[in-house]
């Protein structure tokens, strides 16, 4: 019995740690979706780019992957700004039969990014051999009489903590600074924000940059615990999308909760059904959210607030 509890708790911990990182990926997509009402299907590919940046910085300059957050975030910010300014903005002006053109455009961007990575870096699997990769804390080291054994991986925990710090900083930025308030105003009502003197065009560009830099941070945090190959982007784009649906479209709190739910659910399916089924679990929860909770977690929060 205690073995089963141990496996369950261990899975729960792993899921929560994974969920924190997922939340960071989801946040980037949610912010872009909230402000621009488009879905960035190149999101996972942007993360792949950030992971390559972190990898090469580690290999060439021996900079720790966690420190490379400070390199990949600004770089990805400028990449996002460039994409928005030179590719997505021109398409927003064009009249066409299908309004989904922007989404298809981001697919094109993603294809180019992942294929260029294949050409330049080959499709080998890579990882950063950091010396703390196998370090972990064990429960029995601190509490001798513990009825079961639990461990906490060092790199997962650090990644999780940095993800939480970035999330808090983002909340601070959105809630307290002028620019953050303008971004939120643009997300709520574009025309009203325009009338209030917000430079909507600039906000769009900056938002895409912020979304890209968030996922860039996630890339830097993922590289010590994950491996890297050029086509990994698609999988993370889907994860980000599932999180945004689960959390409620455009809701930041929802995205955080959605990320945690997805992380826990995924590690549960991996433990109890087998690794190969983890992606199916991801989509099961997605389909369940669509049927039973179309508004996502955000709608639950809203209902509670208005109920009182």
């Amino acid at each position: 019995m205690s073995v089963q509890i141990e496996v369950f708790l261990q899975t729960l911990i792993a899921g929560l740690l994974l969920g924190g990182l997922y939340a960071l990926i989801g946040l980037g997509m949610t912010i872009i979706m909230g402000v621009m009402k488009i879905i960035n299907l190149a999101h996972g590919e942007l993360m792949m780019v950030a992971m390559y940046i972190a990898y090469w910085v580690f290999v060439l300059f021996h900079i720790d992957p966690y420190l490379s957050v400070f390199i990949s975030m600004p770089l990805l910010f400028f990449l996002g700004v460039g994409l928005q300014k030179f590719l997505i903005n021109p398409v927003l002006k064009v009249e066409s039969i299908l309004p989904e053109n922007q989404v298809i455009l981001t697919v094109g961007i993603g294809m180019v990014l992942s294929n260029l990575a294949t050409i330049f870096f080959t499709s080998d699997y890579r990882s950063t051999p950091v010396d703390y990769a196998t370090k972990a804390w064990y429960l029995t080291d601190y509490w001798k009489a513990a009825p079961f054994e639990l461990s906490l991986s060092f790199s997962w925990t650090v990644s999780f903590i940095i993800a939480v710090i970035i999330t808090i900083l983002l909340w601070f930025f959105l809630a307290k600074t002028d620019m953050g308030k303008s971004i939120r105003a643009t997300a709520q009502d574009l025309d009203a924000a325009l009338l209030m003197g917000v430079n909507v065009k600039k906000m769009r560009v900056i938002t895409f940059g912020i979304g890209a830099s968030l996922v860039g941070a996630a890339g830097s945090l993922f590289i010590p615990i994950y491996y890297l190959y050029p086509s990994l982007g698609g999988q993370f784009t889907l994860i980000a999308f599932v999180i945004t649906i689960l959390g409620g479209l455009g809701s930041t709190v929802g995205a955080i909760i959605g990320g945690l739910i997805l992380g826990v659910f995924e590690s549960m399916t991996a433990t109890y059904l087998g690794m190969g089924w983890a992606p199916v679990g991801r989509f099961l929860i997605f389909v369940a959210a669509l049927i039973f909770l179309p508004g996502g977690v955000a709608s639950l929060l809203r209902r509670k607030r208005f109920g009182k």
Partner: protein
Amino acid sequence: MKRFLPLIILALLAILPLIGLSTYMMHIVILVIMWSVIGMAWNLLGGYCGQVSFGHAAYFGAGAYTAGILYFKLGLSPWWGLPLTIIVVTVVSLFIGFLCLRLRGPFFALATLAMGEVFRVTSENLVDFTGGDLGILIQERTWVEKIWYYYIILFIAAGTFFLIKKVIESKLGYYFVAIREDQDAAESLGINTTLYKTIALCLSGILTGFAGAFYTNYMGYIDPKVVFALHDISIVTIMVVMVGGVATYWGPVIGAIIMVFLAEIIRSIPWLGVAHHTFFGILLIVIIIFLSNGIAGDFPKIKRLFRIRGTS
């Protein structure tokens, strides 16, 4: 003249093998026609009904695996997959439609993308039923000559073309366009939007399923990574229509010709072969920015462009 254009082209295509094309050229032409079928099917749902699907690989794969499993499990000829795919893909379409059609616009697009991936992962994991990653190999080929495959896919393509033309010119087609232009307005006029979107989805799925079942027979080998591929099936399907022309009869055909030839040319140049996704992506970006309705849709624009160049 214009009314008989499809028939003239069909007649020309019917005598095309008689001029003695090489086996390789026949293969290319068969691929072009197969992709036009998939493109036309996507166009019915995406171009006319406005529901952009990123998961047409699900129907393609379902069709391909219907034929494959008939052979693999029951020992029947995989050609039985062609009629049977109607039933299988209808069930698949109703399932996907029930889940995804409650979403609109980009969210529908992403939900279908996710469904395509669900089908791929499921078929990879159901090893007993689908053979998993090993795939299914059709050991005895019906014909060595490509000409019979050519006529079969030409028959399917002609049927698809005239069916879609009939549907679009009927009341049903007007319902589809109304839903694309404004779903709420269509609903307020008394159109049962869910019903008609489901009809469009089923039709589109079945036609794509035909192409899938044909693919199994023609290629003789399928595995989940090939027939449920996100980039090489679902995205290329969209590209065929986007490049050729959204909501036009001939757009998917033009798009299929361009895409298949482009892919073959790029793959035949050794040092460019790995970069074919980059070229596809750049082509997609250029088309969306400059010719957002595709070559057939923006044909007047291209003509104008060349005329100005010519005179000045």
